């Protein structure tokens, strides 16, 4: 099997956590009893039903067990075929969405221990994001502090939608801790379902959830820019996972246009939103919502105006492309080394500490 993308850094892999029962060895006595006595196991997120086609590619579903369920699978399906030198595990699990923040904290901590023990310890190429109980920034910071010494944890994972817009100051302790430890903050396509995913109420179908998530990313990004998160934490990087890029130019145009008129209201936004975006925001390359004609992709990227934005990702085991065609057709050749490796190294300072 020839690697299509040798040396690549895969920024978005999703290990499947079977459920809370798999975390029992990592929970203390109280929480173990709570989980067992309630029979609490499956905390899957609404956007990722296990058997939905989108959730796992057909040829990545094993005969037995969960898609994305083992280190053997990530090696055989993601790391080896693509020739990736590093892969970042971003666990999709509902623990951060729990209303009980103490339980959320216990389960996030156990999940991070599970990732460290059962994944990171077993393949030196693997890194991971830190799952945090984001509805309590105080507890989230405790988990970041606890985990920060393990340099294999390279970013902080947040749900794409939670109780508050992410720019709100109540969330700033998370950004402060992330910046302090050289950890980008990554938003995943998941919601704590506190609020409807559209400004006009609840949609009916899964397709609406996934397409509408571009709106969610825009709301969060605009909130973080307007509230001054990037002015206050200039070293912070924001990684949008599974966000797509088609919406970016119009977002930047509109944001800059309105900023010119209204910037007195938010004088800490001392550069136009497009400039802030280019300095601070990175987007994983799968799924790509590129124009139908590959020749138009270069024009789209030109409109975005950043060679640093795109990060290589397979989004394993989600079904986004066939074979090893993780790089979209039409990606300008000059961007290839940046997308495959250089942009990730510039985004994640911890990756440079142990370069394979």
């Amino acid at each position: 099997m020839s690697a299509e993308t040798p040396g690549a850094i895969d920024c978005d892999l999703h290990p499947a956590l079977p459920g809370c029962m798999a975390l029992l060895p990592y929970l203390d006595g109280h929480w173990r009893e709570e989980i067992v006595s309630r029979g609490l196991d499956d905390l899957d997120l609404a956007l990722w039903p296990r058997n939905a086609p989108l959730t796992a590619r057909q040829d990545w579903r094993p005969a037995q067990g969960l898609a994305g369920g083992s280190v053997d699978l990530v090696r055989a399906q993601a790391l080896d075929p693509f020739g990736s030198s590093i892969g970042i595990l971003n666990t999709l699990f509902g623990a951060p969405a729990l209303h009980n923040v103490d339980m959320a904290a216990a389960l996030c901590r156990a999940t991070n221990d599970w990732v460290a023990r059962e994944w990171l310890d077993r393949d030196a190429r693997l890194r991971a994001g830190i799952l945090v109980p984001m509805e309590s920034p105080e507890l989230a910071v405790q988990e970041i502090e606890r985990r920060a010494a393990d340099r294999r944890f390279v970013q902080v994972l947040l749900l794409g939608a939670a109780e508050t817009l992410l720019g709100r100051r109540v969330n700033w302790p998370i950004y402060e801790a992330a910046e302090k430890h050289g950890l980008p903050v990554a938003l995943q396509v998941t919601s704590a379902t506190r609020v409807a995913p559209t400004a006009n109420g609840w949609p009916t179908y899964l397709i609406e959830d996934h397409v509408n998530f571009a709106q969610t990313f825009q709301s969060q990004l605009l909130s973080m820019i307007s509230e001054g998160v990037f002015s206050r934490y200039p070293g912070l990087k924001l990684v949008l996972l599974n966000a797509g890029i088609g919406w970016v130019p119009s977002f930047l145009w509109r944001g800059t246009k309105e900023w010119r008129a209204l910037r007195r209201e938010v004088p800490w936004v001392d550069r136009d939103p497009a400039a802030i975006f280019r300095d601070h925001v990175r987007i994983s390359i799968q799924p790509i919502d590129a124009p139908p004609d590959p020749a138009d992709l270069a024009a789209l990227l030109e409109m975005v105006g950043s060679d640093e934005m795109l990060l290589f990702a397979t989004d394993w085991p989600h079904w986004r492309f066939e074979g090893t065609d993780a790089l979209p057709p039409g990606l300008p050749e000059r961007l290839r080394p940046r997308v495959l490796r250089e942009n990730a190294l510039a985004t994640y300072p911890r990756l440079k500490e142990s370069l394979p």
Partner: protein
Amino acid sequence: MSKHVVAAVSDLPAGSRRQVTIKGRPIVVFNLSGEFFALVNRCPHQGAGLCEGEITGLVTSDRPGEFHVSREGEIIRCPWHGWEFDIRTGQSWCDPSRIRIRPYPVEVAPGARLVQGPYVAETVPVRIEEDYVVLEV
């Protein structure tokens, strides 16, 4: 370029502005606490008459939640979309190197000198004992 008498100083008190038309060009003249400045009366965005805009200070911030107002009276906001321009230079605040309004040189000259020429006093009668705002266009 030629010099044009556009107003008597006494008719353009501190903090005021006046629109004039010189060689067919609409120009707005400002008195900033005794210093005079002139800009084309046309926003580079969509052409609004700047003269109708609000004159304010500059709001800046060192960190979110903090506001500093400085340069009171030296910024004009376009009446249509609120873009801010520095009256002293014509530069926009949002993109000063690319979005700017053409400034014109202004000076104050005594009437005694003006009556000798070669100034063009299109509409303003000049008296020897007064000072005048003179625009070079």
